């Protein structure tokens, strides 16, 4: 059985106090708790501070292009469905340049887990407005305050009927670990948005901010995470500042389970050759 140590690699280069440490920690713990071996984990990540996740999380990494971790991750899973596959990245990466892939990954519903480190800022490029930057916040590209309404990732996920939606906070690693565990276990696309403070460039959405504003749905016994419209209302009312399991549809069938002819054997284990009969069958179609 793997331990946390097995999921550790080089020392992360994040700023001390960066929320991404917590996310890394929770991902590692979730894998350990579920008995997953590091060689069976693959992380595809985009570009950003958060994008360095694939370097810092043990397991195979594909540190890909800005905004494109989801296409990579989906194909990794199809190529070898024995792997536990994460896509990981930032709010700019996932909700800016990568928005189209996000919505389409939800409809396609391949069994991967998408973790967004949502710090409401472009960290790695040193502090520009991101798609989730709040109206009025001053950043290097909005020196007089941002004017565009922020992206509402959880509401979009609900609208597109994503089968598993959770939101976590780097400051609560225990809850985050459990959410990621559930996400991994969900059979289909799972989305975990994490409030992961950027201590260097975002002086508004800080640990303290979240500690004093977050509503924890996991602690609300009356909350039913299986009613999509109810979830929408609740999230909207809390102005998105909620954590917990927001929505789950355990019945929603994954792409792999519905695609006609999806192979039993992982693609990576298929024989590359075609049998004589296989060739003959194909050639017949050309005659």
């Amino acid at each position, binding site marked *: 059985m793997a331990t946390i140590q097995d999921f550790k*690699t*080089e020392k992360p280069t994040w700023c001390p106090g960066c929320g991404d440490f917590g996310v890394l920690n929770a991902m590692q713990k979730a894998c350990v708790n579920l008995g997953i*071996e*590091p*060689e*069976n984990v*693959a992380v*595809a990540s985009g*570009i950003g501070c958060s994008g*360095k996740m*694939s*370097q810092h999380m*043990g*397991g*195979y*990494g*594909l*540190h*890909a*292009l800005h905004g*494109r971790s*989801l*296409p*990579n*991750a*989906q*194909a*990794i899973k*199809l*190529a*070898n469905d*024995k*792997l536990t596959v994460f896509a990981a990245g930032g709010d700019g990466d996932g909700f800016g340049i990568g928005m*189209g*892939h996000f919505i*389409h990954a939800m409809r396609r519903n391949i069994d991967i887990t998408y973790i967004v480190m949502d710090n409401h800022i472009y960290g790695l490029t040193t502090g520009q407005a991101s798609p989730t930057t709040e109206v009025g916040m001053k950043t290097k590209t909005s020196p007089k305050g941002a004017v565009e309404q922020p992206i509402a990732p959880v509401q979009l996920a609900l609208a597109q009927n994503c089968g598993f939606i959770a939101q976590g906070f780097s400051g609560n690693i225990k809850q985050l670990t459990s959410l990621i565990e559930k996400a991994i276990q969900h059979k289909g696309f799972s989305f975990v948005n994490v409030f992961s403070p950027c201590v260097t460039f975002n002086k508004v959405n800080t640990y303290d901010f979240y500690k004093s504003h977050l509503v924890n749905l996991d602690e609300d016994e009356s909350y039913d995470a299986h009613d999509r419209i109810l979830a929408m209302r609740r999230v909207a009312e809390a102005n998105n500042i909620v954590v917990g399991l927001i929505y789950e549809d355990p019945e929603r069938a994954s792409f792999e389970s519905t*695609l*006609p*002819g*999806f*192979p039993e*054997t992982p*693609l*990576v284990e*298929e*024989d*590359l*050759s*075609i049998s004589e009969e*296989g*060739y003959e*069958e*194909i*050639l017949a179609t*050309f*005659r």
Partner: protein
Amino acid sequence: MHEQIGWKVGGKQGEGIDSTGDIYAIALHRMGYYVFSYRHFMSLIKGGHTNYKIRAANRIVRHHGDTTHVLIAFDQTTVDYNWHEMVDGGVVIYDSTSFTATKPDDANVNLCGVPLTEIAKECGNPIMKNMVAIGVSAAINKFNPDDFIPVVQDKFGKKGQAVVDANMDALRRGYAYFNENFNISFPAPPVPERAEGDDHLYVSGNSSVGFGALAGGCRLLAAYPITPATEIMYWVIEHLPKHGGVVLQAEDEIAAVNMAIGANFTGVRAMTSTSGPGFSLMMEALGLAGMSETPLVIVDVQRSGPSTGLPTKTEQSDLNEAIYGTHGEIQRIVLTPKTVEECFLLTAEAFNLAETYQCPVIVLTDLYMGMSYQSIDKFPVAAVEHRRGKLITEQELKDLGVYEYHRYNPEVKDGISPRSIPGQKNGRYVALGNEHNGIGIEVEDLETRTSQVAKRQRKLANFQHFTGVSVDGDSDAPLALIGFGSTWGVLEEAREELEEQGIKVKHIHFSRVFPFPETEFHAAMESVTQGLVVELNTTGQLTELIHKSAGYHGVLEKCLKYDGDPIGLSEIVSAAKKTFKVGVHS
């Protein structure tokens, strides 16, 4: 008796021109002829002129031919548009139920009205005018109507025997009507003998690419629809799942290529297929594959550009982007198959090259190659190999121990370091587009940078592969026709014709443009004092590539075509005669 016949049907898009052509072409193919067919169509769904040209011969043909013996015209536009290519004494059949054709000029062409629609109505449905036209054609080409039964059966069988019978009835009536009313014929040549061991297959470049991918071990295709590449998707969707593969229709081309990268990273041979606009969208990912040394196969079925251009027309104008596209510098291989057989073989081979050199391989075909169907003797299936390149084994990893495997070991002599595959214990690394150290961690120091650049550059430094330059014709010839990709067939015919006219010319053709086959090309050019580079683009991209890589300034002339139509034999021959300024025996 003719060695070959040129037949064409034309009308408005949505009028069934395609299926008429398909039936005639497949019937002739099944009779045993070598058929080459080319569809002219427009980027709209209904209306607009479309035509379907068939050339049938008693030897293999790799071009649809410049001339037409029989033209079936469903409207006057078809007459006007195609008149110029009618042979002397050729015959135009028009549907006299719907219009009265007029001759655009006084060329010696027979204009024969046949009440196609009326006859079809008599058989129960005006839609069968196409079958009547086929019957008329069969009469002119002196075929036996019964020879069409299998095709008609195939085509309409699932609609019931009554439909099959009605269609055959229409065909026979057209046949009879023509024989009763006219006395013109272009008898097809005798059916050629089939050589021992030869098959007789009717294939397109797109289906050949699909088949090549499957045969080459491709098990995942991610693509986004785009003319003229979508047919590759169709072929693969039909066949790949039977062999344990998966096809993904991506949300866009950026997703498609990144999916292909993801699967290749995971050890599965994967590709994407597209055309120009989609290819341009893949430029960033091309760089990722290059930098992360992840195998990747991209097929670009070129169409007429730039931008949306002429989406249903052909061109060879993405060569530059294939060679130079993406910011910064990566190792890549660009193949340009010159026949449908090479579409098959080089697509299969692309996966070997991609895995051997751990870099992207681009296969450039074009609309003409991709969408034209032609009869061939066989696919080179026996030539397909699976060479997976350097893959580290479980045992090697075990011996190394934890954290000791260096995926990007810059010291490997040939620049190619063994890959591990996710799932392998101790094989952990990060594939990435940042500059990196041996295990794939971003580092920025000068030594790592220069050693990794040098590592990657070594990979293709002494590249050798059976693709490259082919030389046909007299090896001492002082004159050369030069081309790449899909024009091989028509250039071969041009060479033969020029030779017949006493002009000593060889034909040098690239089936790989990058790495530029420098040595072979110099060797091929040794005897040459003048070369004519024939390309379907406006700037002479191959010519410029040759200038850059090998010189020959002042030796090369260009014959460029970029109106969207495939180049004709006579265009090449006349350009050659003008360029080569040699005394012509006449």
